[in-house]
């Protein structure tokens, strides 16, 4: 039965995993994602799931075990954060190259150093080139919903790539929110069975997974994964549409909040979008045409759709919760500007915010909208600035 409840983002992710009932979970504890495998192991102990839970000795091993399980032909999931994800990086590339639809519940946390346990996006941004689909969630409901969609997106025969569903550490993972948990049977029906075409435990077909690839094959394999990632766009769109039909909550590649006649907009991912919506509402009440674009799908990157949504703006702020150290702007800033290039003549300002869990407040967003008005009026702004840094 569908129920209204209140729970943290980690509990919501664990509820999704309980309903998915994956065949294998291999995970290693790391703050702030630790609770996810902890709840799942309780479900296992209570007989609510029949998942094989593998308590591994590291995140490298967690992803390796998922790769083995997925190659064997079953659904495999894991959860991690920060340095744990970094320890997985090597195997994330292998999972993607082997085209295994593993689902990773990621709880974004600053990547050490300096050592810090709070939210920023440096961990998943470090994995952005690994070949995983990446979805970002604003709150517990979205983390839950995105996880319910993740298996079907990843397992689409035209995709077959691992997927990462991100939520912000502590802000979302430990904050208690109202949430709708859907009916178990309905979720089970929505997700369906996983039947891979080729798998190691098939007794009638022998198979080698992850063989050495000599140079005459590597470019062809990357080209095929590139196509799979392009195909993921349609899979995300289709599964999201089906999700809306079944459960009533709609998800696009990004959410447009009060964008219909917006002149100034902020583009941001995950929990900060909720704060920014309040700023947009206050500015709208004051007669300022402010809007928000919340990017849900970072990989594949919806460049054309973003350019369409953003064209006509007088100015746009692009918000990164990590610094790529290019010296020319953080990752989201660079990709959004590339998407706009030649398609939409929009003035942009890049901002880096919230590193190591630093709060970003409604007033910060209002200040940013103020700067966007200055930018539109012809004031020069640097390519990228830190929000709240002590000068």
């Amino acid at each position: 039965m569908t129920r209204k409840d209140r729970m943290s983002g980690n509990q919501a992710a664990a509820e999704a995993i309980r309903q998915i009932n994956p065949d294998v979970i291999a995970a290693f504890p790391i703050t702030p994602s630790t609770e996810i495998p902890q709840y799942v192991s309780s479900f296992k102990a209570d007989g609510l799931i029949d998942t094989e839970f593998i308590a591994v000795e590291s995140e490298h091993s967690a992803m390796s075990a998922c790769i083995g399980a997925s190659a064997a032909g079953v659904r495999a999931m894991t959860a991690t954060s920060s340095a744990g994800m970094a320890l997985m990086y090597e195997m994330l590339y292998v999972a993607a190259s082997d085209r295994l639809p593993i689902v990773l519940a990621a709880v974004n946390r600053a990547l050490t150093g300096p050592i810090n346990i709070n939210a920023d996006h440096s961990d998943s941004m470090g994995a952005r080139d690994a070949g995983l689909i990446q979805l970002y969630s604003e709150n517990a409901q979205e983390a839950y919903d995105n996880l319910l969609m993740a298996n079907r997106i990843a397992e689409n025969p035209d995709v077959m790539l691992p997927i990462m569903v991100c939520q912000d550490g502590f802000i979302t993972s430990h904050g208690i929110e109202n949430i709708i948990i859907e009916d178990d049977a309905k979720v089970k029906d929505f997700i369906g069975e996983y039947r891979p075409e080729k798998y190691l435990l098939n007794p009638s077909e022998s198979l080698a997974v992850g063989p050495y690839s000599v140079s005459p094959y590597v470019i062809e394999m990357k080209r095929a994964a590139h196509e799979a990632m392009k195909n993921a766009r349609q899979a995300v769109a289709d599964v999201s549409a089906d999700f809306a039909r079944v459960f009533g909550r709609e998800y696009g590649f990004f959410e447009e909040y009060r964008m219909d006649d917006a002149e100034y907009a902020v583009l941001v991912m995950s929990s900060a979008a909720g704060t920014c919506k309040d700023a947009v509402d206050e500015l709208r009440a004051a007669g300022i045409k402010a809007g928000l674009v919340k990017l849900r799908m970072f990989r594949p990157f919806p460049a054309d759709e973003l350019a369409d949504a953003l064209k006509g703006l007088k100015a746009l702020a692009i918000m990164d919760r990590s610094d790529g150290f290019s010296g020319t702007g953080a990752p989201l800033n660079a990709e959004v500007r590339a998407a706009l290039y030649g398609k939409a003549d929009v003035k942009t300002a890049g901002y880096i915010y919230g590193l190591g869990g630093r709060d970003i407040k409604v007033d910060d967003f209002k200040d940013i909208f103020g700067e966007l008005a200055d930018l539109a009026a012809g004031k020069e702004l640097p390519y990228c600035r830190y929000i709240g840094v002590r000068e």
Partner: protein
Amino acid sequence: MSEKENLMKGIDERSPWRDITAGGFVYGSGNSEYFNTGDWRTRTPVWKPEHCRQCLLCFPVCPDSSIPVSEGKRGDFDFGHCKGCAICAKVCPFGAIDIVAGTESAEKGGEEA
């Protein structure tokens, strides 16, 4: 080696990317037989049947299964896969295997190693 179907037949270094298996999966087993690695060799064993007593100490130590045995007797090397490691020559108690430089056996112009 029993006859079996090569499920990777048709996929080679000229194949377009759409024809490569997803993830580079290799279908079927024992496919290394179809992949000629003998040209990696820089020195070559020469089997001298007149010295060979068929003791069969050589074939189990060959890392590339390149010494074919049939009805209890070894035959000449499988030069499609032999890498010239010379372990066989080392274990041979009867001096029945020489090692010559190059990828070809002595009769084909190889030099004494």
